[in-house]
């Protein structure tokens, strides 16, 4: 018996042509799901000249919905005005599952609300960690709680992310799955190594890095230069690292508001010949930059997953990173040196890494194959598909959620679409917020009824599907 395939809509404010981690995550996941025989469309907002409906490689259909942008390419929270168009797309593409991405994307939150109103299954993927203390975070968390009060399943990219999301949105932990990011390991290959037979004399074993005692060692940093990426830490640490280890160089790629601080640091300490700043680079150039170095330094202050350190390890770099967020889960300990997110420890950790490389203790040439075995998008797609099957009831609840004895949570699972039950879930969100959210849900439902009357479902043309691939079996 062939497995059931689904029609999935990925909804997110962040998508190509804008570069970034969430964007490539959605694209890669969509491509691999299509390879498994599903149908995937992506709904995002319009980017400058990128409007309307387009197709990407592999038949990913992208809807660039024309809406206004307010902040860092998030759309203005129009809440209800998106609903008629959203409903039209859902009907014409015969969508069964709405999969929203990223907390900061209002489009995604609205889509999950509308999707539930329309009686579709919804999944939410959280890509980021959010704090609990400042006003912005509190507001974001409240909004997230609203959206996640009535969602079928949540996916986080790391266990730290799961913990964070469960706390923020007061969710049943069993409703949250952890599916890490992945990378296209063929795009991040280390430089080809010389054939042992071509060398003038035999070395046993071949050194991981052909690094002589007086050769310079290069440290690479590829990061957007924002506060949360730890650029301040980097600014403070670079002069000290260069002082301790004169035979090292830095290559810094990326741009952002903190670039100016780095420039000032370079000029104050006269390090122009030791620190090279490349400015913004395209994602496909990242590999070419990474392979120039021996160590990858990642001073981030918060990170849900940190795809970039996986990319660096895949390029055969020894990784020095701060032990924050989901980073400690990402790579095995022999590929990384961890530091506390503070200046002294970062300098010390980098020193340890340099010493280990110089002593030729790290087998970085094996990193690529190891990373390749750990991370692949095919695997991510397979695990995501299992989530889809779980929420659609194609695998039994016990199998999907596992055995549990915390019976008080079970009310929140197996979420039905009855309006009264949805309202009950939203009402628990807070004294005032609960009532406000209920009001929103009721209005949303009324708009749905109006849409059903004004644009009857049978008047909406069904769009033709891209030719589907045969569903993949489970054990490939």
């Amino acid at each position, binding site marked *: 018996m062939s497995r059931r395939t689904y029609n999935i809509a990925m909804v997110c404010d962040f998508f190509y042509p804008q570069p970034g981690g969430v964007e490539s995550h959605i694209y890669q996941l969509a491509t691999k799901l299509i390879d498994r025989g599903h149908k995937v469309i992506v709904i995002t907002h319009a980017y400058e000249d990128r*409007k*309307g*409906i387009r197709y990407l490689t592999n038949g990913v259909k992208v*809807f660039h*919905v*024309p809406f206004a942008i307010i902040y860092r390419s998030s759309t203005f929270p129009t809440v209800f005005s998106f609903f*008629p*168009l959203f409903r*039209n*797309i859902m009907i*014409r593409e015969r969508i069964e599952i709405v999969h929203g991405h990223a907390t900061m994307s209002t489009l995604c939150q609205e889509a999950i609300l509308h999707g539930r109103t329309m009686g579709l299954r919804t999944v939410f993927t959280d890509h980021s960690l959010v704090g609990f203390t400042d006003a912005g975070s509190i507001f974001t968390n409240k909004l997230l709680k609203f959206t996640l009060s009535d969602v079928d399943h949540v996916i986080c990219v790391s266990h730290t992310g799961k913990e964070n999301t469960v706390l923020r949105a007061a969710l049943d932990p069993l409703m949250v799955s952890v599916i890490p990011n992945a990378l296209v390991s063929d795009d991040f290959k280390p430089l080809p190594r010389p054939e042992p037979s071509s060398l003038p004399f035999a070395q046993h074993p071949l050194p991981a890095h052909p690094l002589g005692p007086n050769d310079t060692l290069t440290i690479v940093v590829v990061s957007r230069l924002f506060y949360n990426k730890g650029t301040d830490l980097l600014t403070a640490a670079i002069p000290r690292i260069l002082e301790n280890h004169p035979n090292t160089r830095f290559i810094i790629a990326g741009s952002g508001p903190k670039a100016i601080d780095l420039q000032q640091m370079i000029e104050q300490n006269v390090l122009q010949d030791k620190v090279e700043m490349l400015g913004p680079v395209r994602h496909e150039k990242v590999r070419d930059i990474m392979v120039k170095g021996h160590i990858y330094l990642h001073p981030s202050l918060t990170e849900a997953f940190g795809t970039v350190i996986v990319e660096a390890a895949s390029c055969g770099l020894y990784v020095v990173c701060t032990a924050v967020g989901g980073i400690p889960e990402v790579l095995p300990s022999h590929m990384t040196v961890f530091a506390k997110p503070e200046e002294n420890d970062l300098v010390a950790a980098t020193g340890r890494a340099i010493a280990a490389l110089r002593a030729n203790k790290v087998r970085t040439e094996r990193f690529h194959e190891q990373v390749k075995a750990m991370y692949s998008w095919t695997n991510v797609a397979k695990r995501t598909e299992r989530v889809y099957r779980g929420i659609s009831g194609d695998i039994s609840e016990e199998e999907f959620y596992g055995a549990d004895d915390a019976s008080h949570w079970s009310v929140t699972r197996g979420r039905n679409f009855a309006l009264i039950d949805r309202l009950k879930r939203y009402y628990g969100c807070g004294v005032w917020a609960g009532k406000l959210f209920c009001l929103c849900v009721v209005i949303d439902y009324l708009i749905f009824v109006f849409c059903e009357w004004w*644009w009857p479902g049978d008047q*909406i*043309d*069904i*769009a033709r599907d891209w030719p589907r691939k045969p569903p993949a079996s489970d054990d490939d």
Partner: protein
Amino acid sequence: MFTTTPYLRIRRPSPTTAEFIVSTLPPPTMALRLSFYALYTARLIVGSLLLLFLYVAWAQSPYGTLPSPSPSASPLSIGALLAAILASRPGVLATELASKSPRTLAFELCAVALWAATRRLYTEESLLVLRGLGVQTSSSKGNILAGRATTRFIPTSKIQDIFINEAFLGFEVRHYLVIVVDDEPDVVVVFPKLLPRARVVESVWRGVKECLYERGTVGDRYVLEKKRERCGGGGARAY
């Protein structure tokens, strides 16, 4: 009232010519025809009464003059005719009305009413395909006075491609047929006002491909063969 949802008719005057007409005008029946005639007559009467009222209002204003029939002029001159009309019952009534009604508002109302009375009742858009020559798009104008239709001819040598696309329109996503023309920044949308349903657009697209390039679209050869047999007679067929 007199229109239906847009539907497709195909005319095949010759084997190398096809015309795809999308129209909101239902197929004419006797009752429909009679009611159309009645409606046109009514609109003509309303329109002429409005014009008369406007004329009288103008004549009463400080800028206008009332026609003074000189006895020497023939009874068929314009002045004499106008005077006769004014002397008739509707003329007298109009004069009375015009002297009572506020001037500015009356003019605007009349203009709107005239525009409404000359509006076309239905929309009809068509695509004429002539093998070896090209295609002609045509779209009926909204007002009767503006003329029959806007047409545009695109020679075959200028046509890069014809395809179906999807786009956002208000709160909807619609299918539409486009012609890509050489050296033009914008594409030409076929049936721009009616934007018929996907089913119609698709059958037009197949028909155009078949008629213009004398071959079917890939993968649908069998369907097209059957279609050709059916359409070969040159009869009109409604969808």
